[in-house]
């Protein structure tokens, strides 16, 4: 184990996988010479050379095509988007090509590409740079969607993503890059997809989150402890595949659920989970399922408005109070 930043854990994962498999390469804007916009790929071009750490023009369609085509031809690309907001340009390549080629060909060809980069809201970056879009991808069959919270998960899940034969959407919350945590140095350490983890056990209510929201869920849970409300906090880790088993077994104990997401609340993963719980755990529910999500507005710039638009601990606390009333 070593104490390191989330961003360093990601770098470690990529470096280890590049050592392990010569077919793994990185491409993206500023990933090489510039050392990565968030320093995630720092030093990798020097270590692996420009053919394996490829600086690209600001061409998101091209980057996504580069990764998709290279993956179809047998390589294991890691395409970095400078932010997931910019990846919107590349939607056709990701959704219509990478996600579908395996199915369209009945498995005759696969696309083992990883699309990764910083995601999330905050820092007064306003409407076009501050947003969470994971549900867009979780909505699409054929994509695996991964959002690690801890540095250890960042490493373990990224390694799993690189080794996976399906295209993976890997979203790193920019607000987590500087987070430190113990990370296994074992190059064989991986974290499997589809296994949520209970970050804090509790008995009265299940709070579900992922990525940066887990931190807010834990803070809320701590505050609620003092009110005598015992919260179980689940970190989903991957939205696709979704670990309903862990959610269902938790809800079977707590009977109350608050699902959180940083994304716009409308038509998001929380709604999906709520619907599945209504389907699969109807008889366990002892309160309405509440969602905590972002305000359904383009992210405003002004600090006060931004604060109101991003879901926080207080929103979670209030939702938990409501379902435990």
């Amino acid at each position: 184990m070593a104490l390191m930043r989330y961003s360093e854990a990601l770098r470690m994962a990529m470096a280890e996988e590049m050592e392990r498999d010569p077919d793994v390469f990185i491409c993206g804007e500023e990933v090489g010479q510039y050392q990565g916009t968030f320093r995630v790929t720092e030093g990798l071009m020097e270590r692996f050379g420009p053919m394996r750490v490829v600086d690209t023009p600001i061409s998101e369609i091209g980057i996504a095509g580069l990764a998709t085509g290279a993956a179809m031809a047998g390589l294991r690309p890691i395409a970095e988007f400078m932010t997931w907001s910019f990846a919107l340009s590349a939607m056709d390549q990701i959704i219509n090509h990478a996600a579908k080629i395996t199915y369209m060909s009945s498995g005759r060809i696969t696309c083992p590409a990883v699309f990764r980069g910083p995601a999330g809201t905050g820092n007064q970056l306003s409407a076009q740079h501050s947003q969470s879009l994971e549900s867009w991808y979780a909505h699409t069959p054929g994509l695996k969607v991964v959002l690690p919270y801890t540095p250890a998960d960042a490493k373990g899940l990224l390694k799993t993503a690189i080794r996976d034969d399906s295209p993976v959407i890997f979203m790193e919350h920019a607000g987590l890059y500087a987070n430190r945590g113990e990370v296994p140095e074992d190059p064989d350490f991986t974290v499997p997809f589809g296994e949520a983890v209970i970050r804090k056990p509790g008995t009265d209510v299940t709070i579900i989150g992922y990525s940066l929201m887990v931190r807010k869920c834990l803070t809320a849970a701590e505050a609620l402890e003092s009110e005598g409300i015992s919260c179980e906090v689940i970190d989903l880790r991957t939205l696709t595949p979704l670990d309903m088993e862990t959610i269902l077994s938790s809800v079977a104990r707590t009977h109350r659920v608050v699902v959180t997401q940083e994304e716009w609340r409308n038509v998001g993963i929380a709604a999906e989970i709520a619907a599945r719980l209504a389907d699969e755990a109807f008889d366990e529910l002892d309160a309405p399922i509440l969602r905590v999500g972002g305000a359904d507005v383009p992210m405003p710039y002004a600090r006060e408005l931004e604060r109101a638009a991003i879901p926080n601990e207080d929103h979670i606390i209030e939702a938990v109070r409501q379902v435990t009333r």
Partner: protein
Amino acid sequence: MTQQAVAVPPNEPEVRSRAFDLPRMYELMLLIRRFEESLYRKYREGKIGGYLHRYDGQEALVAGVVPLLEPGDLVLSTYRDHAHALAVGTPPGEIMAELMGRATGCAGGKGGSMHLIDPSRGFLGGDGIVGGPVPVSVGVGFALKYRAEQRICVCYFGDGAMNQGGVHEALNMAGLYSLPILFILENNGYAMGTAVHRSTAQPDMLLKARAHGVDARRVDGMDPIAVLEQAETALEEIRRTGAPIFMEMTCYRFVGHGVADNAQQQQFYRSTEEIEEWKSRDPVEALKNHLLGSGDLDTERIEAMERTIADQITAAIEFAESSPAPLPDTLYEHVFAKG
């Protein structure tokens, strides 16, 4: 280290050697033409669903290029992709079965007309999105360069794609990284129903490619011999330099964009006179006449070819029609890669 579905295409020397000759090119063009005609009949019978985009009139663009490829070279195409599958050697029965939505189809019945695919023969598939295969070809070309195997990616796309942003991103990256890609612009003059001059301020396609640092050439796609010769030269150059070449092949689509774009519909954007004029330059007929004139073929051999092709198509239809539909429980199969 990693095994991928793209295997090295089997060496088929009778088709893929440099000794590929004009009679064989003619036979392939004839197969493409007759096959498209049979598909149209089957579509009219209701045996084929979805869209149907025919290659009639453009046969030389495929028949003069794909047979020249070597094992390990890879081909990407558009939704007008039946000819490409036939050219790489995909059995007509598997193509017919795919169009009829059978489990024995070359994409297992899940792709259909626009998504024919045959990785084992180097065909990475048709693509239903205008301009879609071009960014993909950058990745394919990059993979080939990455492995330093001197293979080539041939990427087909139409004149409509030249106005798609992704195509320009891709051309730029191909030029920037010097990737071994032969871009073939199938310029049949119309993006669906919109003539080139109505959709671009700069109709000189070569300039668009050169703007991205890619060597660009034009060839008359109605002239099979020219296509074959120029393709041979270009492929040899790419294999030697590793750099991309953009070839605009001017041609004409004898039929509508799709089945719905019937003769009546086409009147909105092109005249009967124009169609007839281009048809008088039918590349299949042109090559036949050339070969009859040169003595490389005689009427008897041509009739024998027609019979062989008719038998092939009959067999393909029988194969497809007798094949089972995909089982319902395969619905959720292959959403993700196995393993």
